[in-house]
């Protein structure tokens, strides 16, 4: 090697935390991937100044030394999309964790590389078009049926088109072509996509269909739309993860991408363990078969935490493009923002509020823009959606902080979690006074049409009950509940019952973890009827103490916790209790 080429060979000049610098990088491109050090750790170019480049390193840098080599990879951080993604667990740079375990054992060591999809895997491809046809980007070429029956639609990658001269149906390995085009090029079962770039669509559509969560407090009070976005901020232990997991299990989506971003390893183990065993209530297949897990736990490298969110969104968009309803659970976007902050501060960027980079808000906005309901590119005509549910972990539970605020500015709904409610074990600990959904009215109308015409009305009544309850509780805290009038005491109790049986829902009760809209509605109606009956009795002269509210309450709780097959019987019992609410009031 000549002296001059040696001088210009890229090598490391600085290593600190997740950041490295290299010289000899004049030809590098922004966001290009590089391999650094003797171990070949994956990194990404963040900045280029003349001959020097600043890199963020996706793996642990401990032990990486100056002068070690740097090799350019030529492409930005990308992921391989195709059959085999569902049911898999990948890290923030797209490596399957099970492959990593095979390579480095129980602990993840830097420098291992493993492709997202196993290219030797064989699947059965069924062409859906005839040879000779001209295809364009986004067209469905055919299908592969995956484990559990999921129909994986194979698309013409964005930017490609041509006339198909031959299809290769039947059993194919992921590495083999499935079609040849007139220009001699091939199409494959998989396609690569640079994760930081949104995948193209034909057009955006209105959010008009409810995204069914199976959680009463959301479906009934703060519903979101398919393709909508919601921020779920809450202090530690307020129930963000339980909500994300419950939605991942039960929400009406075809595909769920669960991004464990900077959270706990045990939680990921639990998700894997549980999702493999739990059957989807709609078609009886394991929930894991519709799930992709993207995992960067809090002890994994911080730069890969930043990328994990884009990786997850790209996967969701890919299934959206096939015409599916994808949902992304991001737990937690605060960790993503903190990763930005950590890298930004190492880059000595001018810090904005609380040390976060000044571009936090715009990055958060872009990220939320990747959700939505869309008309997909290509034929046949189809629509798909990405719904984004993001947990936010505000320091000290204070929502005025930059990450919560950046998310709220762009999210369509706020499910605010309250530590006070969590302490009272009122779960989900959704603060109904501060939470809101911009989709509420439209979704209410949709539920009126699809579930019960009385849905919106019942919702308004429950909202009012909770509102009055808030006011009265303030009075009661000053004068004591005994000093209130009977009808007000009744209202307090009715609201307390509504909180317990309508809004309250244990994620761990096998019968109630998932509540279909019909059950949600019946419980809400029953609570309102109880309140009405109490009011009527008091008007007719009954005292508060004459009402047998405790029995009615217990009956309602039993209805809530009953298996689906017993719901009718329990509902009848509730009606019975309501009819005999006034002990002395035999008609």
């Amino acid at each position: 090697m000549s002296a001059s080429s040696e001088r210009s060979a890229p090598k490391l000049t600085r290593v600190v935390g997740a950041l490295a610098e290299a010289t000899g990088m004049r030809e590098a491109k922004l966001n290009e991937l590089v391999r650094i050090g003797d171990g070949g750790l994956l990194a990404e170019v963040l900045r280029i100044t003349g001959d020097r480049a600043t890199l963020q390193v996706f793996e642990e840098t401990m032990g990486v030394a100056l002068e070690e080599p740097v090799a350019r990879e030529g492409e930005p951080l990308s992921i391989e999309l195709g059959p085999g993604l569902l049911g898999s667990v990948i890290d923030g740079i797209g490596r399957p964790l099970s492959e990593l375990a095979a390579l480095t054992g129980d602990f993840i060591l830097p420098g291992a590389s493993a492709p997202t999809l196993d290219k030797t895997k064989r699947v059965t491809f069924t062409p859906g078009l005839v040879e000779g046809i001209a295809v364009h980007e986004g067209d469905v070429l055919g299908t592969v049926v995956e484990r559990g029956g999921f129909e994986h639609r194979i698309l013409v990658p964005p930017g490609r088109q041509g006339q198909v001269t031959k299809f290769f149906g039947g059993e194919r390995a992921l590495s083999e072509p499935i079609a040849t085009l007139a220009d001699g090029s091939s199409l494959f079962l998989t396609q690569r996509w640079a994760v930081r770039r949104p995948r193209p669509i034909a057009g955006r559509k209105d959010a008009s269909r409810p995204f069914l969560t199976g959680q009463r407090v959301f479906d009934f009070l703060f519903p979101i739309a398919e393709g909508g976005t919601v921020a779920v901020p809450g202090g530690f232990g307020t129930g963000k993860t339980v909500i994300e997991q419950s939605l991942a299990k039960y929400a009406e989506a075809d595909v769920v991408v669960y991004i464990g971003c900077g959270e706990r390893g045990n939680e990921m183990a639990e998700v894997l363990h549980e999702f493999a065993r739990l059957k989807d209530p709609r078609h009886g297949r394991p929930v894991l078969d519709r799930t992709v897990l993207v995992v960067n736990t809090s002890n994994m490298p911080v730069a890969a935490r930043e990328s994990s969110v884009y990786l997850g969104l790209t996967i969701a968009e890919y299934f959206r493009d096939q015409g599916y309803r994808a949902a992304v659970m991001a737990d937690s976007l605060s960790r993503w923002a903190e990763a930005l902050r950590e890298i930004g501060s190492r880059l000595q960027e001018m810090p904005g509020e609380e040390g976060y980079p000044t571009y936090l808000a715009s990055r958060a906005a872009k990220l939320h823009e990747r959700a939505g309901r869309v008309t997909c590119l290509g034929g046949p005509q189809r629509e798909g959606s990405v719904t984004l549910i993001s947990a936010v972990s505000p320091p000290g539970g204070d929502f005025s902080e930059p990450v919560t605020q950046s998310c709220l500015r762009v999210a369509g709904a706020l499910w605010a979690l309250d530590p006070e409610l969590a302490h009272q074990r009122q779960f989900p600990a959704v603060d109904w006074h501060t939470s809101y959904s911009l989709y509420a009215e439209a979704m209410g109308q949709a539920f009126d049409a699809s579930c019960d015409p009385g849905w919106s009305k019942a919702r308004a009544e429950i909202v009012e009950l909770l509102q009055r309850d808030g006011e009265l509780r303030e009075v009661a805290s000053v004068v004591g509940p005994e000093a209130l009038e009977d009808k007000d005491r009744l209202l307090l109790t009715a609201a307390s019952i509504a909180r317990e049986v309508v809004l309250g829902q244990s994620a761990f009760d096998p019968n109630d973890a998932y509540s279909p809209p019909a059950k949600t509605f019946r419980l809400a109606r029953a609570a309102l009827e109880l309140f009405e009956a109490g009011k009527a009795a008091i008007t007719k002269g009954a005292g508060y103490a004459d009402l047998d509210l405790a029995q009615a309450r217990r009956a309602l709780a039993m209805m809530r916790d009953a298996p689906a097959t017993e719901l009718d019987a329990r509902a009848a019992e509730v009606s019975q209790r309501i009819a005999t609410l006034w002990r002395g009031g035999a008609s």
Partner: protein
Amino acid sequence: MSARQVARTYRGARAAAGPLVYVGAAQRAALGEWVTLKAKGQPPLRGQVIDAGRDLSVVQVLEDTLGLEPAGVEIELTGELAHAVVGKDLLGRALSGAQDPRDGQPRPIGEAIRPLWGAPLNPTQRLPPSDFIETGISAIDGMNTLVRGQKLPVFSGPGLPALELAATIVENARAPRGEPFAVVFCAIGITERETRTFLDRFAASGALERSVLYLNQAQDPTIERLLAPRAALACAEHLAFVHGLHVLVVLADITHYCEALREVAAAREEVPGRRGYPGYMYTDLASLFERAGVVKGKPGSVTQLPILTMPDDDITHPIPDLTGYITEGQVVLSRELHRRGVFPPVDVLPSLSRLMNAGIGKGRTVPEHRKWADQLYALYARGREARMMVAIVGEAGLSPSDRRALALAEAFERELVNQGTHRRTIAETLETGWRLMDRVPREDLIKLSDELLATRPSQRAEAQRKEA
């Protein structure tokens, strides 16, 4: 560092400030490389490269840099990364935070060396924790069950008996099925007196020989506090995943650890986060706390019981706040209960074991455990609310049911939470709870079904009497 480098020696540092020494042109310096600093007439200092740069590298020095003269110091880059010596021969030993013997015995030889910084456990290799640990403490076993592989911190306040609680747990903790277990205790910046409280109790119970002690006390070097827990955890991982022991790690006090972290950040003039703590404190703490767990196909486990002192009893302070965001629940101590002589003074309301459900129920404790705990919790929460109301409206303003709840809350604190150092089995804990619930009328037990209530001990006794 793929291949170990040879040692290189340089004379003269560019600058020094607090715990940091700045070295120019340290060739092929590696991040995390171990450094020895020698100055004439002084014992050598040890440090680590925390920023490797072609023009300038930053070395964080463990020991006190008092009197260090940068220009004259000899700097040796050792070519090695910080590591921990681990092995079964460490059981019964006391070491410093830098792993020097503190018990007058020779340096342990160990069976292996592990990188001090550890590596993240692959999440797919974890088993979800699910084995109940009986601590003998009702407020924990009954209400906030600890599970093997969990990290459950104790949130304490200045002067509250967190270490006594930890000592009691360590003395009492029984692994189910009597499997082999060990204790790793890591003192981080706590006083001699605090260390004694723990060790004396511990020695008396004869548990010392199955434990490893890492002691960094208040008078010991500050920066060593950043290494001590990592050495302790490396050792715990070895004992657990190589020898199959169930290891309980007590880290005391995380607050001192965080202060050391802040000191380094300030010396580097980093942009401070909340209250001057660095923005990466979450990630840093996670690199400790996440080193708890159970691994597929391995018999042992690492369970962590970190202790932290909430400055000013403020749970929103960044230290407890970030900890709470990483750990799997928390046990919160109450000044009020401590003042009233309740031991352990656990405030059940803000306390929570997030893995409780995995560790209780049929086959683990008793099937009705969850309902039992929920009902007691609800009654107690109601009573605490009533207690607050009394302050405003007086006892007369309470409804009869509020008054009953208030009485129950007092009894709950006196009889269930308070137990001194007496050990209670889970059966005794449950029975104590049922006895409390026997005192309230049926209508107050809204969380329990008739069927379940019929099985409580008092009812069973009644039924037996009737039969007889």
